[in-house]
């Protein structure tokens, strides 16, 4: 009896093999967008691997964090590479997740029976942003310090629960070493726990329901062409992953992530400070809101607006037409396109536009 047979009898490999053989990916003019979930997953894998490596040298305290990262960047063999890849991959991963999210929205893949898949995806996206936000503070440099200050201040602007949330996040009223330790805990323990659980649900649901075919393609009754997931789709996936790996190596080598100056709570905020690009559109919106709108503070209005928009975006499977066709469906497509346009334009404004004042 071969090892394979031995394992097969004990692990129920038949059902796995059956699943692998059975899995098919529809082929049509939107198939390209099916690759972005896998791309996000690959970059997440890169994050896990490089993150584990970074933890080996990182020290989560205000006295040592900056020094340990500097040591990592200057003394440890390939430390600069590991850290730069972690930072770049984080950015590419959120980019890939955004592409995945918007394409899912615009192709209306969230329609029945995939509402929960969409909800779990939104949870994953929020977790990604939380990963980005908490990880950004860990090198304990000037930019990180003030980005966290601004970010948690915005949190404090949330009506009612805001001040409590901000204190909970900061572990006090100010950004201190306590905040750093806390963010480290979030970044390497709390968030990974939730991420693993929700990602498991998300991936299971994707397997369970199979790939969604857009309503337009379905209606046209194109002869539904398919390709096998293994090996045909997977090999194409791998081509994309290799390209991403190459891009990461290139970015890390040409633009190693900077460390900057050590955080000093009593230094003024450096000029030109801005958040990571994926928070840029919110940052730009808040910056452009007048200080008082309709008797409300501009900032509070902005925060409430983001909150409401986020809620609507999340529950869109229940608002859109289940058939994916008709005027209601077109309305939601238009809203999705508008949201995409808004995010793109306001993100670009951060980098192109001159700041007001």
């Amino acid at each position, binding site marked *: 009896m071969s090892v394979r047979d031995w394992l097969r009898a004990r692990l129920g490999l038949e059902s796995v093999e059956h699943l692998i053989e059975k899995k098919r990916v529809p082929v049509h003019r939107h198939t390209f967008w099916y690759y972005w979930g896998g791309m996000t997953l690959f970059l997440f894998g890169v994050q896990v691997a490089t993150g584990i*490596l970074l933890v*080996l040298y990182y020290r989560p305290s205000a006295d040592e964090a900056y020094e340990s990262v500097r040591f990592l960047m200057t*003394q*440890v*063999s*390939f*430390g600069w*590479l*590991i850290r730069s890849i972690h930072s770049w991959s984080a950015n590419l991963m959120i980019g890939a997740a955004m592409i995945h999210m918007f394409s899912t929205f615009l192709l209306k893949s969230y329609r029945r029976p995939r509402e929960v898949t969409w909800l779990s995806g939104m949870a994953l996206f929020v977790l990604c942003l939380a990963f980005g936000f908490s990880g950004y503070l860990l090198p304990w440099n000037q930019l990180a310090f003030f980005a966290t200050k601004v970010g948690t201040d915005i949190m404090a602007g949330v009506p009612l629960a805001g001040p409590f949330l901000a204190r909970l996040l900061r572990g006090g009223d100010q950004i201190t070493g306590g905040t750093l330790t806390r963010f480290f805990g979030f970044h390497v323990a709390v968030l990974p726990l939730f991420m693993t659980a929700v990602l498991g649900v998300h991936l299971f649901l994707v397997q369970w329901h199979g790939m969604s075919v857009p309503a337009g393609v379905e209606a046209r009754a194109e002869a539904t062409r398919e390709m096998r997931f293994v090996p045909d789709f997977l090999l194409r996936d791998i081509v994309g992953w*290799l390209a991403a*790996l190459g891009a990461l190596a290139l970015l890390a080598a040409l633009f190693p992530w900077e460390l900057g100056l050590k955080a000093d709570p009593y230094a003024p905020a450096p000029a030109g400070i801005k958040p990571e690009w994926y928070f840029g559109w919110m940052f730009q919106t808040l910056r452009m809101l007048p200080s008082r709108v309709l008797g409300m503070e501009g900032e509070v209005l902005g925060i409430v607006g983001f909150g409401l928009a986020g809620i609507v975006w999340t529950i869109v499977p229940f608002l859109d037409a289940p058939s994916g066709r008709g005027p209601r469906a077109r309305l939601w497509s238009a809203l999705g396109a508008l949201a995409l346009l808004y995010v793109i334009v306001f993100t670009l404004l951060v980098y192109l536009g001159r700041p007001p004042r």
Partner: protein
Amino acid sequence: MQAADERAPGRPRTPRCFLWTRQPPLASLKVGRRRVRARREAGPKRFGSGRPLMKRRAFLDGLIAAAGGILAAFVLYPILRYLVPPKAPEAATRRVVAAKKDEVRPGSFKIFPFGGEPGILIRTADGQYRAFTAVCTHLGCTVQFRAGERVIWCACHNGRYDLDGRNVSGPPPRPLERYDVHVIGDEVVVQKAAGA
């Protein structure tokens, strides 16, 4: 399976073996058209010996495996190098101020840092200073001075050294390295013994 294929005449032969196939033993002896046909039917190009080289498929599989291996090496090499901690700057300490003059009373001791390791400064009941490495030669615990028994004692496995650092009982295999002690002004200076 393969042999059956090779003997069945007239059918285009598809080599089954993964990496290469053997020619039917007699084919290379036949001459003329049969030999040409045998070659043609053998499919992949052969050089000389009648043993066909790899099929294109097998070659590509090998190429991909090799490329994958090289890629894996490119990924793993930095990771392995990264895991090896960089050498700490060589502890070239030969001389430190272990204590202030009146800090250690007769019959007591002090553990002081000496190059990244602990040293032990002992003041005997008659006021003499002695200094040793505080790293037990057995399993590396930090030793202490027991004034009552006049021994240096390691709590981990009950090892004992006398006040010259000689291992006198318990498991320690070697004596403790002894350092020179000088009182300079109001500082007690410890340095490695000359030649050590």
